[in-house]
């Protein structure tokens, strides 16, 4: 939990790093909502399951990432080129 990390400031540093990463993702056109951070203790299994469900629903609602779409497009055009050849 926040302020109770085994590595002292580990989880508060992680929060800052995730914020920084969100900015970097945004810079390359990836919605920063695709990344998140939660404070949890090892004894919160049910809450972890809830978070996973909620996050999966959020990602489903956002749809495929632009990276995935770009890779799919590249794959399709490579296959089309092969067929022509």
């Amino acid at each position: 939990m926040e302020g109770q990390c085994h590595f002292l400031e580990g989880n508060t540093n992680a929060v800052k790093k995730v914020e920084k990463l969100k900015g970097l993702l945004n810079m390359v056109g990836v919605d920063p909502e695709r990344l998140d951070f939660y404070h949890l203790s090892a004894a919160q299994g049910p809450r972890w399951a809830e978070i996973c469900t909620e996050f999966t629903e959020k990602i489903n609602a956002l749809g495929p990432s632009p990276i995935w779409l770009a890779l799919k497009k590249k794959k399709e055009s490579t296959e089309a080129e092969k067929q022509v050849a």
Partner: protein
Amino acid sequence: MIVGEQKPFDEVWEMVKDHKQLTVFGCNTCVAVCHQGGNKEAEILASLLRMRATQEGVDIEIQDGGIERQCEHPFFESAKSMLEESEAVLSLACGIGVQFVAEKYMSMPVYPALNTTFLGDVQGDGSFTEKCQACGDCILGVTGGICPVSRCCKRIFNGPCGGSSNGKCEISKDIDCAWQLVVDRLEALGKMAEYEKLTPIKDWSKDRAGGPRSFKLEGF
């Protein structure tokens, strides 16, 4: 240490996007301390460039790596084969490291990922301030350990000037008046008599006036 700041991502992308292969190369000493140019930052920047390349449909193979210092020959041994096989290098070192790589690999393009900003200290996490301009003729011994060359906006030697107000510089309220700091420090040291002495005209020939500087140790 040398402080650097990553260039805007778009500027970096424009420099490298026309290559078919690129090595993003970190320097794990000074610029790693300011979280801008270390091997870890090279890895992150390489990932971002791959993401941009994928989205723009640009076919470029990007690898990442790094060494402890890009300004000394011996450190390059571990990265020799990686660099020799590269079409181009994006260096996350300071300007010294970028030039060093360029000199070592004459036929390979080398691009700077950082703007080298200043010689400074680490005030706290993520906070860096300029403290030295490598003027080549240090006078810290008579200014109470405060450098007027790097910390006074006007670089004057007999300050403060009329722009000093409440310990701040007229340039910005966020900048301390270097000469106020000098006076405070000399007072604390009981050396205000030093302040009354006029500083002779500085010998700027030891700064950049004589062109690029160098020196060699005898016996090496």
